[in-house]
């Protein structure tokens, strides 16, 4: 049985990784999850300097999901390289670094700093965070803006780049094509869907940021549809995510066209979610006599 997948020339031992921001840099979960089993670890978004993020409350539960408005708090690239990337060196898994910024220059600065980091296989460019007011999603909701940032990053990147797309757009196919035409090596989707929750007793917003990004199984059908539309529109690989909880969910995304998948919010519910998904995929392959996991990608 072969569970390996290829993402723009990088071979993953299996198609399962975490969604950025839901697994720290792996360090936080290392005592509970065998990180060596994962196809890849995607680190939480990192910027050129430390970011404080948003005021609290930053998270709240919603039906089969949650809203978050962390605001990309991160320790900055210096600490990230010294501590988080150093930690990951002792594990046998691919490392994908999620990059964020307020401006084109800030994204490029981080991408350049990561160029010398040998244990980084790919960069995921976060142009779709709904919770920061400058940068982030501003680059990810207009095709022209997405093309511009993709080109700027691609020009300086030593690693392959994955553009992480927002679902908060009218046509995901158009955004996928914009990323591809500007030189992206792969795309990942979906980031969270902008939502809101109101505390009716306090007559105010639950989250200090008022709006937040919705994730979890609640968004899964939207994500499957968008992964399907995006993968039909482009030739570059698609990494699918949005509410994956089980192997069945992961397989659904792959049949919709994803070459690899990411587990997000469900890691919080069950730290072993990713290894459970990997076990379940192997079981599904055995039961359905699938020799090669790549054979199910985009079969619908």
């Amino acid at each position: 049985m072969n569970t390996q997948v290829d993402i723009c020339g990088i071979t993953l031992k299996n198609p399962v990784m975490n969604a950025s921001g839901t697994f720290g840099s792996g360090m936080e979960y290392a005592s509970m999850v065998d990180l060596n089993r994962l196809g890849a670890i995607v680190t939480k978004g990192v910027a050129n300097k430390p970011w404080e993020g948003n005021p609290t409350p930053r998270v709240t539960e919603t039906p089969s999901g949650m809203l978050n408005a962390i605001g990309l708090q991160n320790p900055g690239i210096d600490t990230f390289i010294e501590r988080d990337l150093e930690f990951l060196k002792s594990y046998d898994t691919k490392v994908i670094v999620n990059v964020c910024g307020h401006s084109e220059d800030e994204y490029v600065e981080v991408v350049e700093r990561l160029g010398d980091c040998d244990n980084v296989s790919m960069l995921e460019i976060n142009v779709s965070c709904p919770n920061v007011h400058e940068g982030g999603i501003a680059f990810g909701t207009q095709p022209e803006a997405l093309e511009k940032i993709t080109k700027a990053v691609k020009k300086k990147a030593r690693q392959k780049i994955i553009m992480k797309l927002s679902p908060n757009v009218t046509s995901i196919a158009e955004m996928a094509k914009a990323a591809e035409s500007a030189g992206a090596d792969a795309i990942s989707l979906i980031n969270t869907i902008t939502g809101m929750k109101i505390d009716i007793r306090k007559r105010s917003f639950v989250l200090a940021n008022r709006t937040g990004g919705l994730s979890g199984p609640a968004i899964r059908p939207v994500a499957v549809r968008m992964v399907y539309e995006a993968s039909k529109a482009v030739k570059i690989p698609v990494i699918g995510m949005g509410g994956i909880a089980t192997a069945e969910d992961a397989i659904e995304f792959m049949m919709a066209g994803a070459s690899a998948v990411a587990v997000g919010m469900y890691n919080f519910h069950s730290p072993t979610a990713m290894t459970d998904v990997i076990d379940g995929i192997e079981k599904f392959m055995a039961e359905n006599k699938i020799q090669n996991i790549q054979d199910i990608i985009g079969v619908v």
Partner: protein
Amino acid sequence: MISTKAKVTDTRKLAEGIFGLTLSTKAAIEAKSGQFIMVNTKSEAHLLGRPISICDIDKENESLSIVWRNVGYGTKELSTLKEGEEVDIIGPLGNGFPTDEELIKGKSITLLGGGIGAPPLYALAKELSSKGVKPVVILGYRSESAGLFLKDEFERTADVIIATDDGSAGVKGTVIDALKEHDVKSDIIMACGPMPMLKGIKNYAQEKGIDAYISLEERMACGVGACLGCVVKTTHKDHHSQVNNARICTEGPVFEAKEVEI
């Protein structure tokens, strides 16, 4: 910390809306007073673990007890669990109260618990007493009729002073009112309770120039330091975050009052 199933070995109702469980789990082996566990519901619609503080620890029998107030779906579901059922938990989590010999030796220690802030102080009171530093414990409740939960248990291990909002038992007022009225000599205060109480303690400790350790709570998603949902503003740059934010679930939930902006 471990992620595991824990078997319910005992259930109890302590007062109206206040419930407790004893769980058989290896998480007890490493547990400290002031730490918490994340407890999952069985509902596919309610996916985030509920952070609940540890009330008592029995390392020998590998069991933990927790006590909570029913406030929403998760806690209400927990209160319906029966002996023999299993729950998914992650724990033990957080730093816990400081109980190093060099910090506590020869000191007068006062524990302040407001409402559902009392349970995490129970394991602490027992630990301090066993180390020869019997604390004064001031417990604040709504009223005698609403239930003075855990009072009897605390009285077996510490000197207890009661405060109630309506004066139906002990001092009328807050735990801070009781602290002042009884003029309790304190070198160190350790506290858990609602935010207005913790702010009052921070100010009191500052005025008196004494050390205060307070246990904070905030909405959290992961409980293990990954999501950065539950931060508190800190006086100094936090080593992990590199900004003035510390994770309540990991650097906390217990902080020195002077180190946090609340």
